[in-house]
Structures are given as C-alpha cells and as structure tokens.
C-alpha cells in the first residue's frame, strides 16, 4: 500500500511529541530517547547497559506513562525461577472443584522492565527466550499469548560482574538494540539537581495509548526500503563475518540474519521518525551500532588490544561502501560532496 507523505508527516509529529515528553523527564539523554523510541517502533526489545542511577528505570517509567502501557518490573536475582516471571498454575477452588488455574506472571504486561537481567540464572534467562521471540509463554504444556504490544527492556550493570550470568549469544540476539546509557555531564547534572527532588517522581502527561503505538508500528512496516539500502544492509552484516572484510579480522563470530532484519526494521523506524517515506543509507548507519554491537563476538587478540564492539562496528561502517560498485582507475572519488 502506497504511503501518503502527509500521513507520514503527521505520524512523525506524534512521535515528536513522545520524544519531547521523554526528554522532559530524562535530561541530556536525547540519543538514548531517540533510539529507545526507534526500538519501540521497530517492535524490538532493548538491553540497556549503564551504571546505576543514570535513568534507565526512569526511562521505562516515562515510557509507561506517556504511552499508557501496562508496565511491570522484575528485579532479576540468582534465585529467581522461570515460573516467577512467566506465571504458575495455582490450585484453586472453582465451581468445578479443585483445579489448577494459571496465574500470569509479570511477563503479562506491555512493557516489562527486566532489571539487572544478568543476575538471574541461565534457566530463568532462557524463560525469556520464547516470550521475547514468540510473544507467548508455555507453562505445563499450555501456551499463553502475551498482550500486544509487548516489549522487554532489560538492564545490566557493566561492573560488579561477580556472581552474574552473562547473557548467552542466543539471548542477546533477541534484543533489537543494546543501548549504552552514558553518564551526564556537569551542565545536565546541574539541571537535574535544580529541577528534581529525590524520591519524587516527575509528572508526565500521556501522549498516546497502546493502540496508537500499534498504528505507528504498522506504519513503520509500510515504510519503503529501497533495494540499494537492503543491499547495503546485507553487505554490512555479511562484512561482520571472518574473511568478508578487513575489520572482520577482529571478529570471531559475525552477526546473524536476524541482525539484518533488525537493521532494516530499525532503519524504517528512523525514517518514520524523520518524516520520510523511505529508509536511507543514513538511517542504517545511525542504528548499525546498537543493532550489531552485541551480536558479534570479538577475537581474543582484538579484546587484548583494547578494541570494543562499538569500535569494530564503527570501523565496519567506515569500511563498507554504501554503493556496491567500484570506480575505474581512470576516475578518482573526491572527498567533499556538494549539497543541494
């Protein structure tokens, strides 16, 4: 179905309102807010990584309020069991007599904040797999569908790794984005100090409801992805594999096809946020780091040399050209580009 550019502009304005609302409760984290909204529109789960107190939980709460979504928070601990998050059958007295009745767990919400997800045991972490991918849970052979929309926003602390269970690659691959929450600079801190009180949650007016969010997500699916952009995504993901690019020498295992799908979806969401009818190379580049960085495993030598996943992905972006054609030796490319 062809999209009307005026409709796209209208949707972009709605998203802009959400962005503005979140920026009023989370100071100095414009990029994080931008990417979080992108992730939501792309129907993806997100893994937030940052030191305590940087506003991760605040962001989720703000989303909950602005979108009027049912939000639940689970603090992951080593003794947390799968049933604690999926729900358990409970023996109850009913009209038919005693029988097991499924008691939904905290996963039955629109927005689930999985706080410090790496502190839960692998068994509990795995219980999230089906929920995140299939958007349903199975307990005692009975499958229960999760509500729509359904997002998992997990957090993990990059320090204090003693006694934690690093997320396995299969689990990480389920997250659309891995977002790093940066610390605030002095000016932002001053603004927070002057405008916030400890223990008092900021007020936020609802911007849209879950239905409107679903509509926006549907619009994202209709954004046009040009063939050349799809080709660029394919080449970028392929370049993460050993032997496919110079940068890949530092990569032990490359990104999966799910990474390519995630890139395409996120690029479309970025296009909608910018009020455009089509995704572009720039959209892909802007979401490549959060999409790919947690999906690659670096070589030992690369880690010893101090390289990070982010640096590797940035290097990939610089290495892989947007256009898949070479220039003859009789021509040379100039660096500066004119703008219209």
């Amino acid at each position, binding site marked *: 179905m062809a999209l009307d550019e005026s409709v796209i502009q209208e949707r972009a304005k709605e998203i802009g309102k959400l962005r503005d609302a979140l920026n009023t409760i989370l100071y100095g984290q414009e990029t994080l807010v931008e990417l979080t909204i992108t992730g939501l529109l792309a129907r993806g789960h997100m893994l937030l990584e940052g030191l305590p107190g940087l506003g991760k939980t605040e962001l989720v709460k703000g989303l909950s309020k602005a979108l009027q979504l049912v939000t639940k928070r689970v603090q992951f601990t080593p003794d947390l069991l799968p049933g604690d998050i999926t729900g358990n059958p409970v023996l109850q007295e009913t009209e038919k007599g005693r029988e097991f009745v499924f008691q939904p767990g905290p996963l039955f919400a629109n927005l689930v904040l999985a706080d410090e997800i790496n502190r839960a045991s692998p068994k509990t972490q795995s219980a999230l797999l089906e929920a995140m991918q299939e958007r349903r849970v199975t307990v005692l052979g009975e499958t229960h569908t999760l509500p729509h929309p359904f997002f998992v926003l997990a957090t993990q602390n990059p320090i204090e790794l003693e006694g934690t269970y690093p997320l396995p690659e299969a689990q990480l691959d389920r997250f659309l984005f891995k977002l790093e929450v940066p610390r605030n600079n002095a000016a932002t801190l001053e603004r927070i100090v002057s405008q916030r009180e400890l223990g008092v949650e900021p007020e936020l007016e609802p911007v849209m409801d879950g239905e409107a969010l679903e509509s926006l997500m549907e619009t994202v699916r209709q954004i*046009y992805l040009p063939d050349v952009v799809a080709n660029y995504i394919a080449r970028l993901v392929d370049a993460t594999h050993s032997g496919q690019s110079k940068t890949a020498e530092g990569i032990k295992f490359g990104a999966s096809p799910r990474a390519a799908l995630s890139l395409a979806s996120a690029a479309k969401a970025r296009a909608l946020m910018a009020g455009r009818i089509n995704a572009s190379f720039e959209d892909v580049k802007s979401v490549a780091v959060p999409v790919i960085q947690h999906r690659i495993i670096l070589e030992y030598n690369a880690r010893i040399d101090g390289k990070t996943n982010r640096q590797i992905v940035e290097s990939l972006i610089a290495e892989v050209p947007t256009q898949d054609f070479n220039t003859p*030796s*009789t021509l040379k490319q100039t660096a500066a580009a004119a703008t219209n």
Partner: protein
Amino acid sequence: MSEQEKAARTWRNLARRTVTKVNFGWWLDRFSPLLIVSSLVVAVIILALRSQARPVMGNVPLLIGSGIFVLAIGLIAWVVARRRFLRESDGLVRLDDRLSLRNALTTADRGIGKWPEPPSDFSKVDPGLQWNWGRVVTPFLVAMMAILSAALMPITTVEAARTPPSEPLAWAQMEEWMELLEEDDLIEEQGIEEVKEKIEELRNQPEDDWFSHSSLEATDTLRQTLQQQIQNLGAELANAERDLNALQNYSSQLSEETKDKLMAEYDQALKDLALNGLPLNPELMKALEGIDPSQLSQAQMSSLSKEQLDQLRQALKEGAQACSQCNGQGGGEGEGLPALGEGDAALMAMLKKGPGNAGISRGPGPAPLFLGENETNLGTNNIEGVKNEDYSKAAPGDVMGIGQTEHDIDETKTGPQKAGAVGSVGQGGDTVWRESLMPEEKAVLKRYFK
C-alpha cells in the same frame, strides 16, 4: 509539464551524465592496456615495412588497417567493460549518496515518493568523480610515442634476399632458338624481335601468373607455332639447296622434264620461304630470287659466279642444319639445345628417381603395393594364464590372499571404575600458558602486561 515531471527529467539527466562519465571511465580503463599493446604491434609492423623499404607515410592500406584495428580494440574494450557499466538507477543512487538526499531520488524513481527540487545550478552537482588524468592520458602518449618512434627512427633498409622464381622452360628454349637463328643471320631481324617481344610479354606478367593455365597455354601455342615455322624454314631451305645443287652440277644428266620439275620446286620453295612466319634474311632472299635456275648450267649466262653460287648453297645448307638443330634433329656439327621433347625426357628422368614423386599428370605414380602371405596362426587356440601380481592395481573383489588370524583382545582383568573420571591435568595457571595459548596469544599477553 508539471514541476514533478520537470524535476524527474532534470534528476534523470544528471544521473545519466554521471553514469556516462563512469561508463566512459570503465571503457577507457579497459581500452588503455589494449591500446598500448596494439600500438606496439603497429610499431613493429611499421618497422618491418620500413626495413623492407616500403612506404609508411601515406600508405593507405596501413592507415585503413590501423583505423579498423583501433575500432576493433575499442569494440573489444566496450564488450569487456560493459559488465561494469552502470545504469541510470545507479546514477540516481550515486547522486543520493553524494548529495545526502537520503535515497529520495531512488524512492521517487520507483514512483513511491516525490522528486526533490533539483538544484538551480547544475555545475554545483558534484557526483564526486574526477578524471584521473595521469591514467587517462599516459596510455595515449605511450601509444603515440611508440608509433612515432617506429615511423621516424632511422633504420637500415634490409634488402630481402629474394630467390628469383624459375620461369617456364619453354621461354628459355625459344630464346635459345632465336639466338641460334640470329647467329646464323638466317632470319630477318624484325621477325626475331617480334618473337622476343612475345616472350617478353609473357615474362612481364606477374610472377604468380607465370604458371597459370592461360600463361602456359599461350606459351605452348607460341612454342608450337615457332617450332613449326622453324621446321618449315629448314625444310624449304633444304629443298632450295637440293634443287640448286641438282641444276648447277647435274644439269647435263637431267632430262628437260626433270629440270622443269626441279625449277618448279625451287620456285615453290622460294614462295613458301616468302610466306613463312619467320621471314628469311632479305639479302639471302634477294640473292635466291636473283637466280634463274634455267641458266645455272651456263655459267656465262648467270649473274653469279660458280664460287658465289657454291657459297649461297653452303649458306642454305647451314641454315637448314640450324633449323633442324632447333627441332632437335641436329647432330654432329652444331651445339644446339636439346629439343623440348628431350628436355621433357630429362625432366621425367629426374622425377623418376623414386616412387612417391608422382604428380597429377606425370611421374611414376604412387609407390607400388607389396602383397605377402597372410598370417594364419593367430594363436587363438592356445590358453594362457594371466597373473596380476601387482596388488596395488588389483580390482575390487580380487582375492589378494587368504590366511588365518584372531582378534587381538586385551584380556587384562580390570576392576570397576568410577564414571566421569577424567584423565586430563586440568586447566589454569601454567597449564593454560603451556597447553592452551597460541604463541601469538602469548606474545600479546606479554606485551600487554609489560
């Protein structure tokens, strides 16, 4: 035309311009090495022509050939480069990327979005491609230098050692006849020149045509005609000499009837000599015509003395002998060339040196076939065993050997063992350092902890 159509046309033109530039660049990229190689080939050809003193400047076939050659390599370069040629849509992508249009052109080209407003000044639209003049110009300069060097470089002309082709034997033979007749001063000079001109005319044909069918036929006709004329000349001269001899020396013993017959024969011989294709020497003819055969016996009545008459008869006799020599019937006094029949015989003898030298119409033919007794004992009734001792080449299923053996079973008694026991020395610390790390990993670690 709407604004959108104008914009579409403008952007498409810009894309085409970009694509043309890139495609031409690819063509040049493939054409340049071919041009250099071709120019070297042309340079070698020019040097070869110059070494044979053939003209190069203004050599129209060379110029046309070179032009066609350049066109051909241009076509080859186009075919090779075509695989890398861009399309108009690629040009739009290029503009999208360079002008940061966020793929608006690509999208509009698919009819999904609107065309962005084109720039007012096209010169500001930079597709980010500039000519690499060094790579573009160098091949042309190299090619030009190679050709100019070959054309202008001073070289020594080498005369080709050409072996003169052998000409048909009949020409030389006819010339020998003419020289022989000329030496005896028997034939009018003009007649000899005419025959020589005809031979020269045949010789002036292109050398490739000397042995063509028409040339050989003309040669043969000329030779046969000439041979016939010489033969007739010789015969008439002999007749005239015989008649004169009889009338001069034996007139008293002849009857009147015989004299009349001899005189008639003499007159007829003179007439035939006058009508012959090879005209007789005018002086000799005049002398012969000045003789009155009826008065030969009366010396006082003749215009010639007896000595003069004898000399004349001797000249006729020698002329007749010369003609017969030309026809291969001579012998004794003259050194005439062998007649063509004898030459053919010599040629045949030469060709008959052995079998296999046959031609289509000459020679001894193919080598004779030799028939022998057929072998009757083919050994088909003998039974012979075939052994295959080389087992490396044994076919699947061949029995290599049969023996008896037993399974090698370790029957040592062992007690119950605990499951899950591991025999490894474990990992960590020095074990890891010694057994797990690769040398390059050790080097990295050493460098890191230094």
